[in-house]
């Protein structure tokens, strides 16, 4: 039998070890990715659960969200385009989530991967998760966007087609001081129609403004402009937008004194939208709903109005939450636009900021709403 040298033994061990260990290491891959276009279906009961379509989508149902065990599905929406009612969908973020129209007992948490490189400069602040409801209406939800990881999060209350949308209807909240309003002369109210041959009774003077994503986008109509004071800018930064704003204002001046100034008014003021702010690495949203009606209840009723200079003091208003205020001052100006008149009314939304010593500092967002006399 042949006797092997030490070198031969060493060489043999090395070759054998090489064969055993094989060639160089290659990276292992995770088996989580689904094939393109593939979706997921899962039965989720009252205890909750998570449905996902990696790498872009997950939907987390908390306990009590679904009353009974429900087969929930999510499929990439490839064939039917997502409606553009609430903004332009970000490519690759639309999903068909069913059963369509399922109303959730507790909101479900949607997480969508939105690649920041797919967004134009400044679009990240305008991102929201939108759901097409069973009625066909498209609703956007208060959304948070993680700028580092590209994750958009919102809590939705209904299942249906969903997408990340970039709102085109957004009003930038400016950080300089708003211009002063200078008052002006109220135009005479148009007389009410009367039987032929007799003079008409004095009519009322109506100013109104309406815009919303579903009808006339506020951005394109220019009906509203917004400013934030120093407190707001200090706490929330200077990149603030009101996304998908909705303005509904109608002031119906009923009676006038001998100088042509109104003495009685009925109407409502409502401003809504998603207030968005960009923090360090996060865009966050706040569902803004500010509104008052004249009079003691949430249904508008006549109340006094006293005009002095550029301020009209409304005798009594009630907020949407039922808080009654007396002598609510509203700055205004009235200017002629062509053959008609335009009133600019100044409204303020108060934002509370708690300090570390538990005191509260108030910041204010000022809105100028342009009201016009409707065409008869």
């Amino acid at each position, binding site marked *: 039998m042949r006797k092997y040298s030490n*070198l031969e033994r*060493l060489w043999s061990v090395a070759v054998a070890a090489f064969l055993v260990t094989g060639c160089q290491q290659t990276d292992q891959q995770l088996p989580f990715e689904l094939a393109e276009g593939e979706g997921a279906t899962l039965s989720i009961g009252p205890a909750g659960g998570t449905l996902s379509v990696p790498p872009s989508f997950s939907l987390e149902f908390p306990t009590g969200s679904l009353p009974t065990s429900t087969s929930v599905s999510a499929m990439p929406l490839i064939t039917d385009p997502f409606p553009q009612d609430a903004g332009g969908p970000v490519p690759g973020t639309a999903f068909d989530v069913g059963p369509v129209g399922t109303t959730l007992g507790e909101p479900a948490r949607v997480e969508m991967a939105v690649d920041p490189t797919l967004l134009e400069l400044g679009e990240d602040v305008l991102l929201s998760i939108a759901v097409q409801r069973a009625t066909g209406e498209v609703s956007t939800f208060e959304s948070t966007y993680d700028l580092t990881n590209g994750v958009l999060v919102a809590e939705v209350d209904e299942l249906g087609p969903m997408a990340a949308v970039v709102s085109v209807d957004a009003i930038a909240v400016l950080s300089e001081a708003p211009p002063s309003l200078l008052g002006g002369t109220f135009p005479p109210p148009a007389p009410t129609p009367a039987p032929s041959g007799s003079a008409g009774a004095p009519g009322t003077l109506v100013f109104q403004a309406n815009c919303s994503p579903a009808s006339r986008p506020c951005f394109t109509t220019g009906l509203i402009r917004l400013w934030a004071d120093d407190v707001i800018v200090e706490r*929330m930064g200077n990149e603030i937008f009101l996304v998908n704003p909705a303005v509904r204002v109608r002031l119906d001046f009923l009676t006038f004194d001998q100088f042509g100034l109104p003495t009685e008014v009925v109407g409502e003021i409502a401003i809504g939208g998603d207030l968005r702010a960009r*923090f360090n690495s996060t865009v966050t949203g*706040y569902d803004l709903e500010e509104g008052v009606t004249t009079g003691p209840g949430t249904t508008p009723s006549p109340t006094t109005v006293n005009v002095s200079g550029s301020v009209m003091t409304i005798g009594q208003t009630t907020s949407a939450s039922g808080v009654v205020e007396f002598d609510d001052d509203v700055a205004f100006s009235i200017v002629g636009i062509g053959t008609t008149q335009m009133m600019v009314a100044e409204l303020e939304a108060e934002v509370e900021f708690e300090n570390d010593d538990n005191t509260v500092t108030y910041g204010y967002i000022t809105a100028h709403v342009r009201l016009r006399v409707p065409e008869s």
Partner: protein
Amino acid sequence: MRRSLFPTMVILLACTQGLTAQMSPGARSVAMGGGGMVFATGVDAVEWNPANLAWGGGWNVSLFELGAVGIGSGTTMLDFYSIMEGGTDAPSLIAALPADGITLALITEGFGTAYLLDALDELPSGANTAPLAIGSPLPSVGLALGPVAVRVRSRVRQDFTLSKELADLIGNGFELANVQDYAVGNTGWSSVSTSEVTVSYGTTIGGALSLGVGGRYVMGHGMTQGRFFEPQIDLSCFGGDPTCDIMVLQTASVEARDGTGYGLDFGASLELPMGFRVAASGTNVVQRMEWDENQITGYSARYTDSDFDNDLGLGIEDYLDRFSSGEIIDPNSVSLAVYQASEGFLEGSYFPQVFRAGLGWRSGGTTLEAVGIKVAPRGRYASAWDERVSVGLEQKLPLLTLRGGYGFSQNGITQLTGGLGLRLGPVHLDAGGGKFSGERLDSAPWDGYFGTVGLQIRAGGQ
């Protein structure tokens, strides 16, 4: 006093009974500035240069080796501790942090870490430590018989990154006035726990050259990776409603268990006249490491601004208990956060190829070594300190051996080391330790400490 996650972890891991150092295996090498490769013998030669087994002869048992390495950048260890504890100087220390925050790498011995984590699990609240790391059931021991040696080595490696803004949140507590500044950035962690069984053999070729080979079987006990997500701010809570969470921080992690791997080491050593020796070795020259990709578990946790309250902040067990119990990941039922936390999880999850070359001189009881180490840029478990040049000196005296060393790396890290060996017949008790220091290119500091204690029985041979 504040109790927060990061300092407690650091303290516990640094004080573990049963540690070992990956970067410089062996108390002798640690004391010699990370050198010690040229004249390493017996069990120590297994990880440094298997060719040296041919020169040793005799036998040698390593009964235990306990060590730990901690190296961070962005601040010093003491300042880091002060920041995490919310000390009076925390605001100024946080303000001085570099823009990319703090990094921290810890390497500890696996058996001891398992002991520590078991102790955490047994806390009254039963802390859920799975998202962080697990230890090893095998202690670090070894046996060398002439030219053949076997070494069992268990270790846990953990890496943390902490953004400057999150350090501010932890150190100074949540302040509403700063809410627009908080950012998580690259905050995250990873860990890997393995045991290796390495069998090495060395032989002489002629009278002056020796060659060696080692084969390694790697058992992966656990590997984790986690990250934080940017804070979600609820603007509607700014008014001070105590039931309202102004800020929610989400974190997610993934964990793999049951990895297996192999590695192959080579070495050569050439005796030169006048007591000189040159040596070269390669560790993991050929290697594979795979984890069970079908058993990957996801965890998630959410923290709110009140969890970072300076007075009522959470303790470590509370932070850990906030993690979900963990579920095997199903692609159809995984949150996007957990999915994103898994990105790149298995990529590069193998150990780096390390190549070493050194020149040594020995005369009587004096040994001098200079060693250079180069790491192949594959795999993600290379350390900032792995690539370096080390110079070490060893002086044997009756009963005692004195050691000292210095090392420096290209990225600005330096180390100053020292150690002591006690020889009582065949019983060798060695201890070594040192301090990392230096500056990065952006002038942010490197700082760290390390130490190793080993007990060996040696008989015969050199």
